């Protein structure tokens, strides 16, 4: 977790019942995801992570750099990790019987790209235990757009997110965080992104510098706090950032250390 980003977002306390959208426009927004994953785990939340893009070891190695051990958290039951790539391989080349419980089993059927098994998986992994400590559940989705690539329609993806929101945020007072990579040329993806934008309380949009590639400034981040009540307005702040090995530094536009 990056302390600088925490202070920009107004303190490190975990609020409940919030939806956060991380939108990465033609750049890599994964550093934000790693930040939230490590900070939620540090705060002691129960996290369900749908990692559809990378392998578990990738997330684990970065989390270790940020001071969180995912293997340990998984062993303790505080983290449920769905490794999309692995379950896809298992589904296609594993035994038939195992495939019936696979959350991504819609990949097997030709037309019905039914995301219900995935939703059931989320519900099952974030169900409160009968006893013991139970803190704010969190659902993190690494790349909603991958579901579109795998054959789900925009409506199905939005339905899935809506169900998840209802289950996690409203029922269990938890948080939902999702990442989507966007490009204006992909209409379906754009539709999903816009709809999620309107549903979320906090939007972090990372994009490349409009002036072009720069070695010392990796992009700009727009933080938008959505209006909570009817009379209010959205509030947005813009920062530029530079990603380092273990942290990310944020600064106001044009105030990069390389320039000053």
């Amino acid at each position, binding site marked *: 977790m990056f302390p600088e980003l925490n202070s920009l977002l107004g303190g490190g306390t975990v609020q409940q019942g919030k939806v956060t959208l991380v939108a990465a426009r033609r750049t*890599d927004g*994964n*550093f934000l995801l*790693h930040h939230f994953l490590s900070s939620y785990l540090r705060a002691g939340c129960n996290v369900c992570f749908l990692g559809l893009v990378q*392998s578990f*070891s*990738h997330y684990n*190695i*970065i989390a270790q*750099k940020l001071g969180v051990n995912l293997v340990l958290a998984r062993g303790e039951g505080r983290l449920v990790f769905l490794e*999309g*790539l*692995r379950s*896809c*391989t298992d589904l*296609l*080349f594993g035994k038939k019987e195992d495939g019936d419980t696979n959350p991504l089993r819609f*990949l*097997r*059927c*030709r*037309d019905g*790209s039914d995301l219900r098994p995935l939703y059931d998986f989320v519900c099952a992994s974030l169900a409160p235990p009968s006893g013991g400590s139970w803190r704010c559940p969190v659902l993190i989705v690494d*790349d909603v*757009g*991958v579901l*579109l*690539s*795998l*054959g789900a329609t925009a409506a199905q993806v939005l339905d899935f997110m809506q169900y998840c929101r209802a289950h996690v945020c409203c029922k269990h007072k938890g948080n939902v965080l999702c990442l989507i*990579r966007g*490009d204006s*040329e*992909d*209409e*379906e*993806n754009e539709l999903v992104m816009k709809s999620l934008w309107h549903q979320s309380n906090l939007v972090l949009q990372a994009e490349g510098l409009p002036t072009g*590639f720069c*070695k010392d400034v990796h992009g700009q981040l727009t933080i938008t706090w959505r209006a909570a009540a009817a009379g209010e307005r959205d509030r947005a702040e813009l920062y530029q950032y530079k*990603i*380092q*090995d*273990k942290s*990310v530094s944020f600064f106001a536009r044009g105030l990069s250390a390389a320039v000053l």
Partner: protein
Amino acid sequence: MEGLPQCTALRAGCSKMAAPSNQGVNCREMSAGTETSFRRKVRGKLPAIRGTRPSVHNGQLLLSTGVPSLDHVLGGGLAVGTLLLIEEDTYSTYSNLLLKYFLAEGVVNGHEIYIASASEDPANILKDLPAPLTDEMPKPDDRKSEKQTSGFTEDPQETMKIAWRYQNMAKVESLPMSSTRFGHYYDISKTISPEMLQTAKSHSFYWPGTFLNQEDSLLCSSCEMTCDYYRLLESIQRVIHEGGYDGSNPQKRQKNILRIGIQSLGSVLWGDDICSSEHPQNLHSLTRFLYALRGLLRTSLSTCVITVPAHLIQNKAIMLRVRNLSDTVVGLESFIGSEKETNPLYKDYHGLLHVHQVPRLNSLTCDASDTKDLAFKLKRKLFAIERLHLPPDLSDTVSRLSKQDLAGSAKLLSSGCGTAAAGEKHLDF
């Protein structure tokens, strides 16, 4: 020019391109000859496989694309278990060349090779691979080496050292048949020797050559991918599983790498319609295939290079998704048939190279090169990627021409205006 000594060709290549590291060879020689106290720290957990090296940045095992300058651009090489997507140039001349380099590098390093194609017979691709520059890896019956050894009948160690820089370059006899170096240079005017091809273990998948039977069509109906992709995926999975690359049945012999090369994926020849219509029927078959393939690669000791005719794919959204599902994405834009061919800015190059995506594996940062303006050129024997820059204006004809123009216009002016002292003076000279 066939008879040009290869030595000079190599040297010319080396001086311009990012030189491939020859750590493997050097280390071995050092330990055999003089003992030094300096030892490079090597992490123990990475298995030593020929033709690989650990990344300096994130410890990933890297292998070479066969073009050292491309390795340099991609941050040292391709990580094992990842996917390189090459967006083809208009006539797919250079993308096929890159694919062949990648496969040839595998043959030289003794890696296992898997070739899939729908247009060209994989056996022909294999025969057509470029030959490694023989200065690095000579055959014992090389005439040149014989001449050299007959010239120096005494111990070669005793001879005077003229240029110590070159002493590592032409170690003629000491190198084994397949070297441990990372990255080689190739001579595209020659094809690889059949003996070397025989040593390499290769698999192929040729779509028109394989016929569909009843069982397969049943399988395909159960899964949303076009049959061709599913069969290809199944074939790759079989090779990975039988070769023990996924670690399921541990390899008894030394660990090896599987190099997978797939040519023109997504083209009409694969039975896909994304190139022919904007709203294709199987919108998701290519992306699903890539996702499954990536899953296979991540859990195995294999690396894949795919060329995709990006300019033919009608629906831009598909191309964006395909890019998102790959690890490294490189686009080639050749000047053949485009107006850039005659542009003096590009006269030294044959095309542009766009690095669209460099993976961030196991780290927050990625090690991309610091410039985005890259161009490639195909010399007589070498393919090289260079930083695009304006050539220095060394020729004096250019400036003289412009001066004459100026003088001409000055003359016109002076004739019109009567007296213009400065102009006259210039003309008098």
